[in-house]
């Protein structure tokens, strides 16, 4: 075995910290060059695409929400849109606005968590946010307040923060009254202020110099910074309907990982998430978010994945400002949900989860039974890009100590806010040196 070969060095991170789910990294260096870098997702498979078969089409949102406790709204949203597409129905605009408001809550909560509790400790040099709170109490408390405001918004509309119960195919079980929504307004106003301060704070962090020419993929919408709606946009200029996702992006199964890997049909890695959304939609950010981006100096496309923390903060500003706008303009829908009758057919949809584009595709029969399900989460797509980033980080630094390489790689992985529960059908880091 290469482990005994003195020219081979194996470096392993057995359990990635501050990411959602169970992943590891394996790095093998032979004769001073990188022989293999594998992001291993050993999170055990839960077989969602198989257990959905035979279930009723109305069950897909609540079942797929259980793929991820951090971004359940994303699963609820992609599932309801895909099922509505399959059944050929479109809920009224007021329902759609309420869905966007719910999604704003998840962006604030999930980004708030990642910025402050998972990502920031890397920049400030701590093991965790609790340790960081001893020296930077106001920064951490501000982050907790933001996260809490996002959670409160999800709870108000969805019934609870994790696995909301109020979303259904066709709309909601119960639409809040106007005055119920107004109650949360002062809190979101305060959150907007916290978000602006957070964006200005993270923009001043020291970022490692690292850039790559990524192929970004995100939704693009003529009127909005994308959440629920839009077409697929590629940073090479291509745009296409979401229905064509699988014509362009294909999944393969690497034997070392429980996550399927996605590339373009031509074999190119793609990058989804905040950097991609920002690259394709910057001018549709809310005014305060645009102003924060300007202050941060992000006037054009950003290719440094470490700066994703800034773009996440800018997106929180956007989500708070958008939420205020939606609350002010809210008129309850005539019916909380429209009746949806199943018909035999297929439906697909993509929405923007905090960590990137989440694609669902279902086939149902005329009784509404699910015949097949395909779910492609952003972390599975980003997996190949993360491995390429790791290669570029490690290749010039093969003589660094194992400990240094481990830290470097873990940081590089966290830039993507990977969600491993989602991607399993996804992550495990070992380093082997030869």
């Amino acid at each position, binding site marked *: 075995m290469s482990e005994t070969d003195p020219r081979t060095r194996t470096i392993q991170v057995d359990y990635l910290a501050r*990411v959602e789910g169970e992943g590891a990294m394996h790095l093998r260096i032979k004769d001073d060059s990188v022989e293999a870098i594998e992001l291993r997702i050993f999170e*055990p*498979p839960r077989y*969602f695409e198989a*257990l959905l078969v035979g279930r009723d089409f109305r*069950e897909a949102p609540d079942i797929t929400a259980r793929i991820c406790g*951090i971004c359940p709204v994303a699963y609820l949203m992609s599932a309801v849109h895909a099922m509505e597409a399959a059944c050929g129905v479109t809920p009224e605009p007021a329902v759609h606005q309420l869905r966007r408001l719910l999604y704003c809550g998840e962006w604030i909560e999930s980004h708030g968590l990642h910025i402050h509790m998972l990502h920031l400790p890397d920049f400030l040099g701590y093991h965790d946010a609790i340790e960081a*709170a001893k020296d930077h109490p106001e920064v951490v408390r501000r982050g907790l307040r933001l996260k809490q405001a996002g959670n409160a918004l999800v709870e108000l509309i969805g019934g609870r923060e994790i696995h909301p119960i109020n979303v259904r195919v066709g709309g909601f079980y*119960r639409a809040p009254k106007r005055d119920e929504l107004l109650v949360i307004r002062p809190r979101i106003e305060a959150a907007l202020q916290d978000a602006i301060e957070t964006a200005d704070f993270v923009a001043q962090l020291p970022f490692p110099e690292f850039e790559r020419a990524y192929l970004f993929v995100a939704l693009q919408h003529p009127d909005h910074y994308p959440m629920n709606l839009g077409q697929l946009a590629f940073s090479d200029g291509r745009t296409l309907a979401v229905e064509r996702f699988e014509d362009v992006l294909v999944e393969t199964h690497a034997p070392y990982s429980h996550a399927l890997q996605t590339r373009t049909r031509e074999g190119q890695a793609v990058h989804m998430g905040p950097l991609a959304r920002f690259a394709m939609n910057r001018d549709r950010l809310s005014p305060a978010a645009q102003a924060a981006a300007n202050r941060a100096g992000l006037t054009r496309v950003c290719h440094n994945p470490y700066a994703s923390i800034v773009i996440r903060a800018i997106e929180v500003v956007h989500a708070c400002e958008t939420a205020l706008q939606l609350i002010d303009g809210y008129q309850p829908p005539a019916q909380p949900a429209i009746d949806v009758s199943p018909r035999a057919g297929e439906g697909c949809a993509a929405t923007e989860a905090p960590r990137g584009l989440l694609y669902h595709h279902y086939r149902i029969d005329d009784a509404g039974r699910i015949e097949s399900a395909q779910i492609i989460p952003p972390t599975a797509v980003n997996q190949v890009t993360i491995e390429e980033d790791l290669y570029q980080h490690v290749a010039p630094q093969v003589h660094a100590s194992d400990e240094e390489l481990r830290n470097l790689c873990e940081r590089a992985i966290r830039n993507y806010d990977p969600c491993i529960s989602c991607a399993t059908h996804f992550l495990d880091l070992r380093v082997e040196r030869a």
Partner: protein
Amino acid sequence: MPPTGTERPRLAVWKFASCDGCQLTLLDCEDELLALTDRVEIAYFPEASSRMLDGPYDLSLVEGSITTAEEAERIQDVRRQSKQLITIGACASAGGIQALRNFADIESFKRTVYAQPDTIESLATSTPIASQVPVDFELRGCPINKSQLLYVLNQALFGQRPTLPTHSLCGECKRAGVTCVMVAGGTPCLGPVTQAGCGALCPRHNRGCYGCFGPSETANTQALSPHLERLGMDPPALVRIYRTFNAAAPQFQAESQAHERD
């Protein structure tokens, strides 16, 4: 060793097959988190910290179910290192949604999802933590409730056994003054057989309970099912309603199987 003097009790948070939502509930205690860490030392919680200290631990919170041979071994090790072991969530107490495999063919599941099914190591069943090791307390829910989690942590830190209501959701719903969605609205509801604890969320949103907290202590599913049938549910629908996030809880499992034979 029990904590002494100024030494804080050591807490560990473990993940098995799950969505992470229940451990996230701890991080969602935004108001209490920093105060909590004054009272306990978070010794092992990989989702929140890159500092992972070795055991033994005074209290382990365990999320997730057992779905691989590796997990079956690891839970033994967790138990050995933990003075108290409390499970959090429906995966840990009843196998979770991934226990739907218990009623299907695992090989066909693998083929549905993976191009190279032979490379996937996975047990044929998803089983609760208590089927593998002794558990000191099971906190129910998909996901768990934040107030219940804080209460259970407090009790455990004082060395007291937590007592939470094991009656059905109906009691909670009535106390909240919610009109019965089933009797008044004709909506199928699992409230009469589901353990209280969520705050009657679904009925408060004009929705029937779908059983996140698992069976209540004296769940009479055989009495409920005929009512559900009268509201229009056919046998396949009855199988499905008992077979979601607590599918492997004994009362729900038996009832779903009874209707599978119909």
